[in-house]
């Protein structure tokens, strides 16, 4: 049974959106800026008017105000109340809900402990680091024990390291609490790492919703494929475990070494950006290195895409402009392809 069901939701850029989010699921809403991701969260939270219907556990909640929807919302820029200290920020919703002072104290202390920010109790938002602010905002969103958690690009302002660390923690917390979560991002890596399912949204329409592998190996259309980086998808025949966590597969005559996760592999996917291009034979063992011929060059604003024929397979590889300029590449030129082992996705 879906915990949340969106029926023909229309608001701003979003047009007739239908989407189901399952109970205790971590759904990542993935799409470029302006695709309608935040609008959809605001609709679910009841913070804006909309056309269509939102169902929680099959009950229509369109008439319920935001305060009655039992939703925890973590906004993109967090918006911790600057005039309240950490304790009061977390306690805000509880105080509004007229909880008893000792209940408030107990719940806030529980959250401070859960998010390991007990030492910040009496600090004001301006005295906190980016990561600390994230934790406080998350604690505030969780204070009312919501049934649904909405996270609007909460890690976008953090540095790479802190973001990676908090992602892991967030996912763990979601599993522990078993709370249905919708996480909005435009970052594919974030989506892959955290999602039980991904819903790709573009120009206000859900293009595809499914498990990470489904999206990667069976992109529904060109838009989805482009958005996830136009992966090269290869069917595998032979499968041989080589030990030490690696295996060998045969893809139409190409013998490729892949990470072994203990399952038989049917398909592999490689993003064009995860394939290196070299003009000369690269040093090192002759593994995941293939000779090919450039058959097409496509120069876009962001990157240069090369179509390379190796054996009887056509692969897409990607180069940043500055590297492409340094190399003398042209159609018909022989090049070497190197596949990054840990970036190969397997089905």
């Amino acid at each position, binding site marked *: 049974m879906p915990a949340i069901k969106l029926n023909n939701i229309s608001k701003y850029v979003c047009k007739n959106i239908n989407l189901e989010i399952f109970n205790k699921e971590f759904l990542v809403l993935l799409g470029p800026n302006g695709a309608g991701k935040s609008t959809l969260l*605001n609709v679910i*939270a009841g*913070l804006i008017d909309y056309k269509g219907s939102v169902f929680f556990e099959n009950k229509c909640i369109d008439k319920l105000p*935001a*305060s*009655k929807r039992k*939703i925890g*919302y973590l*906004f993109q*820029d967090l*918006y911790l*109340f*600057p*005039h*309240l200290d950490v304790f009061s920020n977390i306690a*805000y*919703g509880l105080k*509004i*809900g007229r909880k008893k002072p000792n209940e408030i104290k107990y719940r806030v202390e529980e959250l401070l402990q859960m998010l390991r920010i007990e030492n910040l109790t009496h600090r*004001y*938002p*301006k005295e906190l680091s980016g990561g600390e602010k994230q934790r406080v905002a998350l604690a*505030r969103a969780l*204070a*009312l024990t919501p049934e649904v958690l909405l996270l609007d690009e909460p890690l976008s302002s953090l540095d790479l390291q802190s973001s990676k660390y908090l992602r892991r923690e967030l996912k763990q917390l979601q599993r522990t609490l078993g709370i249905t979560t919708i996480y909005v991002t435009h970052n594919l890596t974030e989506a892959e790492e955290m999602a039980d399912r991904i819903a790709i949204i573009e120009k206000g329409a859900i293009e595809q919703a499914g498990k990470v592998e489904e999206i990667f190996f069976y992109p529904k259309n060109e838009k989805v494929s482009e958005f996830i980086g136009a992966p090269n998808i290869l069917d595998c025949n032979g499968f041989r475990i080589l030990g030490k966590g690696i295996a060998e597969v045969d893809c139409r005559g190409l013998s490729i070494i892949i990470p072994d996760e203990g399952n038989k592999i049917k398909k592999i996917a490689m993003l064009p950006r995860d394939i290196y291009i070299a003009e000369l034979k690269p040093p090192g063992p002759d593994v995941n290195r293939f000779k090919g011929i450039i058959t097409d060059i496509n120069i876009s604003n962001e990157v240069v895409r090369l179509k390379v024929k190796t054996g009887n397979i056509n692969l897409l590889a990607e180069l940043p402009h500055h590297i492409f300029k340094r190399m003398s590449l042209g159609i018909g030129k022989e090049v070497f392809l190197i596949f990054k082992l840990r970036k190969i996705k397997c089905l």
Partner: protein
Amino acid sequence: MKIFRKLIPGWGVVPVIIFLMLWELIARVNLISGHFFFPPFSMVVAEFYCLTANGVLGKNFLSSFLRVLIGFSFGSIAGLLIGILMGWKSLIDKALNPIISLIYPIPALGWLPLLMLWLGIGEILPIAIIFICSFFPILYNTSTGIKMVDKNYIRVAKSLGASDREILTSIVIPLALPNIFTGLKLESGMAWRVIIAAEMVAIPTGIGALMMKAESLMRIDIIIVCLIVLAAMCFIFERFFLFLETRFTARWS
């Protein structure tokens, strides 16, 4: 110990002492023609003592003080309330803004002739002038402060279950406090400047009136005493609101 340390004047007092010493010196060596036009500081202090001892200064000061206190209190409370309403409800803002935009630029003393005819020369007149002087700027600062609060804080509070009234009292007004205090600080000093001017022109009692009487008697020492009292009161009022602002907003703003 902390309080004791606070009472000891800091280095800021040094230029004041130097200024007073120079004043005394210039007057004493007759650099400006005689004590008549430029009395030394010691003479002003002596006159201050005299005026205080015979009750003249106290009586006039009390008149001015009560007028400022009553006029400013009513003006700022009305300005705050209407400013909050205008900042919070766009309908009220749309209805009142054109009128207030028209009236706001009129200087407080510009109302004096009209109010003299409407209210007569009595205690209500200076209070009404101070009311007008405080009301418009405080209203303007308050409504601007309320409007400037980032709407996303309101969205967050709403998502946490707060009603409109709770959002206004627990989020919007506290976040507008720096703007509100700016208005209160400036206008508390301005109220003193305006009351003195009003008393000089139209009201027979108060510090302003005492200055005008001193002028007719050519008592420059009394005029300076009054000016010092005025400066001190502007300073104290502004400092009082600065203290409140620091107390309520310094930690977070």
